[in-house]
């Protein structure tokens, strides 16, 4: 919608600010001027007005806002028109009283139809409004001036009274745009005694239109029900200026004003003569819901309590409240309580319904930026999110070990979801974004796998990623949402003295999980090789159990899955139930003073059969309950594929044992005795000590 400032200024004789200042002041009050263009005589404002403010989508409406902002007088719109002469004019009958609340009609005779000249032609050119003929242009000019749609009929095509009624099922009507419409009982028409003349509030009819040869005119200005017009306009695919306004609620009181304004211009510009008074049929029930709505109670203490302090350190005074609301068209009547009012609402502001709406208007016209910046006093405590610290610990621990956080899509394809979470049910979306997003993700694994593959295909050489996010299971009636943690890695496997490069990635992930779990106060953590999920390559992964409950699993991605992703190298994936961790307390470090006595390290070298696991060796040593044993760890594991240094089916293990007492230096005999017990225990496991 566009506004000409020189037109605007006609209504605001006392307006002193420049057009640019006006544009800024309007914008800061919610009547947004998006563009300012110089035109002959002033500026053209490109407006962006929210749909709840249809009343301001015309020159007079914007002028009213400016008058309120600057506290200057606003000229009456009908100043120039002849005084009202309402009475028994052209006969009008409203049959659909629920859909048409008001209808005014005025006969104007002996008009001369010609192209528009003068101000109308100039302003139409500036605004880009298409001229048609002087009489039709007058209705459009009235629309641009005050935002109320009007219509002119060729009076000599009418047969009897105007009847506003529902269309008959299948009734035909040719419209102004030349299209022929078949109507239904949902449509509202303006008709005469014989035929439909116009699709009410949407578009006039072809047969009753004003043409070059029209001599006598009937001017219509009415008020139609928003829902009825919306229905008709949608049903017939017709979005017109008139339907736009009626759909959003027109001004009930504006109909007679608009009619007089059009009539006045027909006299002035088409040399017409009004014939008789203006007919004005009003449905009181509709008037009561629009122009005569009940008054709203407004209390200035409430205004002040909600809006607070102004820049000058004061508050919004009752004087300002009265000034602003009256400038916007409200009338304020003092109520019995001091500082309270009963407010009669303007007929054009159907968006105002409650006290808070009026308070917003006061704040808006005063100017949001003229309020001070204050901070509320503090009362009440701060509740920390119960698992906030756990969440941060997960993220920080993983990041410290070189893992990067990713955020993936909340959705997955059903196929991917089932591949990685066959035991869960995925919840389908009703209107999926695309075929790849058909279900809510029941697992983070499919997202992690495809992100890793995408990185691989971008030639990123190594990747360590994790995601902490929601997964969804259940069905469409009941969705369960839980936090999950996924990890994914490929590239740069770390070989060490105890694991080969081939196994390095698995052990890096295991080590990361161990370090992460060590942050939590957990009674037990176990890794098990059995019952792996299908996405883990057989024998190449582990399940993680925490306090004997399943936490998750990790391992090398199964070859079939890897092929599907066209993954060139080994991927290790894992997923854990983050909810378990979030609900676990964080471990509080228990500190013991370091022993003042020297520790003794002894390295033991053994051969073991491949069937003997580290867990068995570790347990065998710990089960001796040697009080001074402070650590036992594998230092080197060696297998010889040729079977020379170490027999096939066996491995050599270099074991480091550390002994230390808290209360004394260990004597050589004590150390020897403990080491001897350890050697015996390891031999019982089938170990042979290396010479």
């Amino acid at each position, binding site marked *: 919608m566009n506004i000409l400032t020189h037109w605007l200024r006609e209504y605001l004789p006392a307006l002193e600010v420049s057009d640019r200042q006006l544009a800024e002041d309007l914008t800061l009050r919610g009547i947004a001027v998006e563009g300012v263009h110089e035109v002959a005589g002033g500026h053209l404002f490109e407006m962006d007005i929210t749909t709840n403010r249809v009343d301001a989508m015309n020159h007079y409406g914007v002028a009213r806002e400016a008058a309120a902002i600057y506290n200057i007088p606003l000229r009456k719109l009908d100043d120039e028109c002849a005084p009202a002469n309402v009475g028994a004019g052209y006969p009008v009958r409203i049959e659909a009283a629920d859909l048409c609340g008001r209808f005014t009609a005025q006969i104007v005779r002996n008009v001369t139809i010609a192209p528009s000249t003068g101000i109308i032609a100039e302003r139409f050119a500036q605004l880009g409004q298409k001229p048609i003929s002087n009489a039709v242009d007058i209705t459009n000019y009235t629309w641009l001036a005050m935002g109320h749609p009007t219509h002119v009929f060729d009076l000599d095509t009418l047969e009897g009274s105007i009847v506003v009624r529902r269309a008959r099922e299948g009734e035909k009507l040719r419209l102004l745009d030349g299209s022929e419409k078949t109507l239904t009982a949902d449509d509202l028409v303006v008709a005469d005694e014989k035929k439909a003349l116009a699709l009410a509030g949407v578009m006039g009819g072809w047969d009753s239109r004003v043409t070059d040869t029209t001599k006598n005119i009937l001017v219509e200005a009415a008020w139609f029900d928003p829902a009825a017009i919306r229905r008709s306009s949608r049903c017939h695919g017709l979005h017109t200026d008139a339907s736009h306004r009626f759909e959003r609620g027109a001004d009930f009181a504006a109909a007679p004003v608009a009619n007089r304004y059009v009539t006045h211009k027909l006299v002035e510009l088409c040399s017409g003569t009004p014939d008789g008074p203006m007919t004005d049929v009003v449905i009181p029930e509709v008037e009561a819901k629009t122009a005569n709505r009940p008054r709203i109670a407004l209390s200035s203490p409430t205004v002040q309590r909600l809006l607070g302090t102004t820049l000058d350190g004061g508050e919004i005074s009752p004087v300002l409240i009265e000034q602003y609301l009256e400038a916007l068209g409200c009338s304020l009547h003092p109520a019995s309580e001091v500082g309270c009012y009963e407010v009669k609402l303007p007929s054009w502001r159907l968006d105002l319904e409650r006290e808070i*709406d009026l308070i917003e208007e006061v704040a808006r016209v005063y100017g949001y*930026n003229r309020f001070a910046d*204050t901070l509320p006093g503090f009362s009440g405590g701060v509740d920390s999110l119960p698992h906030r610290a756990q969440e941060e610990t997960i993220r920080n621990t993983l990041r410290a070990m070189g893992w990067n956080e990713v955020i993936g899509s*909340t959705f997955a394809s059903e196929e991917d979801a089932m591949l990685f979470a066959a035991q869960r049910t995925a919840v389908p979306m*009703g209107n999926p974004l695309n075929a790849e997003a058909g279900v809510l993700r029941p697992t983070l694994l499919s997202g992690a796998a495809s*992100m890793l593959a995408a990185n691989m295909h971008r030639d990123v050489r190594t990747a360590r990623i994790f995601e902490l996010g929601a997964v969804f299971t259940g069905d469409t009636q009941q969705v369960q949402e839980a936090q999950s943690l996924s990890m994914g890695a490929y590239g740069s496997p770390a070989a060490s003295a105890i694991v080969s490069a081939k196994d390095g990635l698995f052990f890096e992930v295991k080590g990361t999980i161990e370090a992460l779990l060590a942050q939590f106060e957990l009674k037990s953590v176990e890794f098990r090789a059995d019952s792996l999920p299908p996405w883990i390559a057989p024998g190449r992964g582990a399940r993680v159990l925490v306090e004997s409950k399943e936490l998750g699993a990790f391992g090398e991605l199964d070859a079939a899955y890897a092929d599907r992703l066209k993954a060139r190298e080994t991927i290790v994936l894992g997923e854990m139930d983050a909810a378990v961790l979030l609900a676990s307390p964080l471990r509080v470090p228990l500190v013991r003073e370091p022993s003042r006595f020297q520790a003794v390290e002894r390295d033991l070298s053994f051969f073991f059969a491949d069937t003997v696991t580290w867990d068995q060796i570790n347990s065998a040593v710990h089960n001796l309950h040697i009080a001074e044993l402070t650590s036992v760890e594998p230092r080197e594991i060696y297998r010889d594929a040729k079977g020379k240094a170490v027999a096939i089916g066996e491995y050599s293990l270099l074991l480091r044992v550390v002994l230390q007492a808290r209360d004394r230096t260990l004597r050589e005999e004590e150390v020897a005795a403990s080491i001897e017990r350890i050697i015996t225990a390891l031999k019982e496991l089938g170990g042979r000590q290396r010479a």
Partner: protein
Amino acid sequence: MSEQIPQLSGHDDATLDQAFAALQKQVRAGAAALSTDEARENFRLAWLGRKQGRLKLISDAWLKTAPVEAKKALGQRFNQLKTAIEAALESGHQASTSAGPGLDITLPGIRRAAGVEHPLTRTMREVVAVFEALGYSVGIGPEVETDFYNFEALNFPPNHPARDTQDTLVIADQEKKPGRERLLMRTHTSPVQIRSMIAQEPPLRLVIPGKVHRNDESDATHSPIFHQVEGLCVDTNITFSDLKGTLDHAMKSLFGSAVKTRFFPSFFPFTEPSADVQISCIFCGGKGCRKCKHSGWIELLGCGMVDPAVFAAVDQRRIELGREPAYGSNISGFAFGMGVERIAMMLYGISDIGLFYSGDLRFLEQFA
């Protein structure tokens, strides 16, 4: 190197110091010419050879003749001498393998890279921290919500277009359910405001970070998946100027104390009065540049005073759940919300929103 075994003339400290100083001098003299492997091996054999090395020969000779009380002192000094010999060998080795005369300190350091915090997590954490410092608690809620929490209680009228499946992603098979129980992807984090008010009496100060979804076409600046941080402050006598002051303070904390804020009337169903907030451009300081489209201002927040209809819906629900209504006419509050992606894109100069969800390490690693 078949030098003679020196004689030890006594066992007092001074004599020992003198004798060992002479040996150290011999070691240093030999160490000066250890640039080849061969020279080092000869040096090693000469001093540390197991049978004929000088260290063994001298220590055998001197310890044999020493009185018992002097043996400990002698042993310590021989250990020091051995350390010096080993150090000479090691530094000779390093000198021969390094290319230049010393450290090339311009070579890159050896780094162990930490993983990166996702830029959205980082931005949310930074925004949340500002409000935590103001006494706000952190609130979270489910991503799958009901119509009641996402729309109805937030004063969206029944036929509001936001409810349409063109705008909102819905779970399948919801048609048979009562409207307010229909399951959908939350379109904003505001449902957490409702959940919190139903659960708790005022005063309430909450900051709510989270993931939200809308049925939008993706392009460079729009994604159907995005993140928000919202805030809610409810108490007796919370004012519009408190809202202004809080957001002005928060924006200064986030973007620097020179940043100014500007409030415009706006419309949201759940607040009234409602405002859009702009900050003065953090790139040009308000003079106008490409990033602020030459306006000097950047739009960043939506906010407003909590609509009384929202309080009424909350109290209605509290009553249905058998709780006391607690959000009567003496209570007021404000709410605000901002898009995390938008802030992160602005701060880090990101032009494609899709990068956030790509898991592309070439993108993410830049946040290290």
